[in-house]
C-alpha cells in the first residue's frame, strides 16, 4: 500500500498554486477575501466537498479565477473535456495571463488539440513581453510545447525553428526533453548529422532515457551502420527495462517509445 499512498500524496498534481488571500484583505474586498479563503480549504481533488467548496468561493467572489481553474482540474484528468473547458474558459476570461498558458498546455497534453494549443500559447505571447512560462508538468517551456504542436500538424521545419530559437535565448536553461525532441525532428526531416548532434547532447544532458538511444539507433540504421544500430538499440532496451524512459502518469508523451517498438526494431531482419 505504501506505493499507492505516495502517489496519492501527490495526486493533486496539475493543481494551481494557492492564491494569497491577503491581497484581497489589503484591498478591503471582504467578499473576495472570504471567497479566497474558502477556495484554499483542502478537500481531496474532485470530491463532492471540494467541488462544493469552489462553488462557495465563486459565489462569494465571482471573479476568483483560481476557483474556476481548480474546480476544472478533475474533469480534465477524468476525460470530461466539455465541462473542463467551460470552467477553464471562465478562468481565462478573468485572468488571461494567468491561465492561457495552462489551458494551451492542457489542450496539447490531454486533448491533442494542437491547433487550439497553438492559439492559446501564441495569444499568451502577444499579451506579454516576458517569458511565457512552462507547461503544467514543468517539463516544457511553452514555446517548445508549441513547437511539438506544429510537429504534430506536420510543420516540422517550423517546429525545429521554434525549438532552436528557444534554445538560443540568452537566459534559457534547456529542459529535460528539448534536445531529444530536436534530435527526433532532425531525424524525421532527414538531417542525420543534426539528429546525432542533438541526441548525443540529450544523452549528455539527461542519460536516463531509452528514447535517446532508440532514435540514435534509427539514425544509424538509415546510414546502414548496423553494428552501431544494434548497439544503440540494445542499450535502449536495457534502459527501458531499467525504467529509464519517458513517463507521464496521465498521458502518453510525444516521442515516447515502448518496449514493443524496440523489440520490433531488434527482430526485423536487417
Amino acid at each position: 500500500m505504501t506505493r499507492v499512498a505516495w502517489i496519492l500524496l501527490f495526486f493533486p498534481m496539475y493543481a494551481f498554486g494557492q492564491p494569497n488571500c491577503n491581497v484581497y484583505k489589503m484591498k478591503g474586498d471582504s467578499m473576495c477575501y472570504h471567497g479566497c479563503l474558502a477556495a484554499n480549504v483542502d478537500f481531496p481533488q474532485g470530491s463532492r466537498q471540494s467541488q462544493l467548496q469552489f462553488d462557495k468561493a465563486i459565489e462569494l467572489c465571482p471573479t476568483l479565477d483560481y476557483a474556476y481553474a481548480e474546480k476544472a482540474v478533475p474533469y480534465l484528468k477524468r476525460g470530461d473535456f466539455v465541462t473542463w473547458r467551460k470552467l477553464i474558459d471562465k478562468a481565462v476570461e478573468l485572468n488571461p495571463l494567468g491561465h492561457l498558458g495552462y489551458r494551451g498546455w492542457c489542450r496539447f497534453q490531454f486533448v491533442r488539440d494542437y491547433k487550439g494549443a497553438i492559439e492559446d500559447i501564441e495569444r499568451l505571447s502577444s499579451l506579454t513581453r516576458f517569458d511565457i512560462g512552462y507547461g503544467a508538468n514543468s517539463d516544457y517551456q511553452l514555446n517548445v510545447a508549441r513547437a511539438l504542436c506544429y510537429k504534430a500538424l506536420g510543420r516540422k521545419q517550423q517546429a525545429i525553428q521554434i525549438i532552436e530559437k528557444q534554445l538560443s535565448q540568452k537566459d534559457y536553461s534547456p529542459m529535460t526533453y528539448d534536445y531529444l525532441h530536436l534530435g527526433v525532428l532532425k531525424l524525421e526531416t532527414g538531417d542525420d548529422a543534426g539528429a546525432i548532434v542533438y541526441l548525443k547532447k540529450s544523452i549528455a544532458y539527461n542519460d536516463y532515457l531509452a528514447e535517446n538511444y532508440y532514435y540514435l539507433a534509427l539514425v544509424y540504421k538509415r546510414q546502414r551502420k548496423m553494428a552501431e544500430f544494434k548497439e544503440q538499440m540494445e542499450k535502449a532496451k536495457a534502459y527501458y527495462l531499467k525504467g529509464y524512459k519517458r513517463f507521464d502518469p496521465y498521458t502518453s508523451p510525444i516521442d515516447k517509445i515502448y518496449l514493443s517498438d524496440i523489440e520490433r526494431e531488434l527482430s526485423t531482419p536487417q
Partner: protein
Amino acid sequence: MKQIFPLLFLTIFHSCAQSVKEGDKYPPQVGDISFDKNIDDPNFKPCDESRVFQYYNFGKGLQYKGEKPAIDQYFKNKARLSERAGESGFLTIRFIVNCEGKTGRFRVMGMDAQYQEKQFEKSVVDALLFLTRQLDGWVVAHDDKNKFDYYQYLTFKLEDGKLIEIMP
C-alpha cells in the same frame, strides 16, 4: 508513511463512501459512474464500490498488456470506420476496470472541435464501444496486499469518421 496512510486514505475515500442522494449537485467524486440497470451488465461488479480509484492514482499511467501500442494497434486493425463527412471531434468512453481486470459501466461522451457536446452517428459509437468492451488486457491495479478497481477512459480523436489518435 505507514502512519500517514490510513488517515490519508480515509480522507480521500470518505467522499466515495457517501451515497448519491437525489438532488446532490455532484457525485461523491467527479466522474463517478453509478450502476444503471437499464444499460449496465448486472454481472459486472467493482470489488469495492466505495473506493474506485482513477487510473492515474497508481503513478503508472495507462496500464494495458503490451502498453499503449497494443491499444493503438488493436483499434487500427479492428475499427472498421468508413469515411463520414462531419464525424469529427472526440469520442470518449469511460469505464471501470475492476480488481479482476474485467470492465464494465461504459459511458460515452462526444465532443466537437469547439469542446461542445456532440452526438456521433450511432454506427461510429457502436463500433468503438463494441471494441472497447472487448479489450481484455487491462492490468489489475494492486500493491503488495490488495487489488483495486479504477476508472479508465479512452478518447478517440476522429476526423470525418477516420480514427486519428487515441488518448490518454
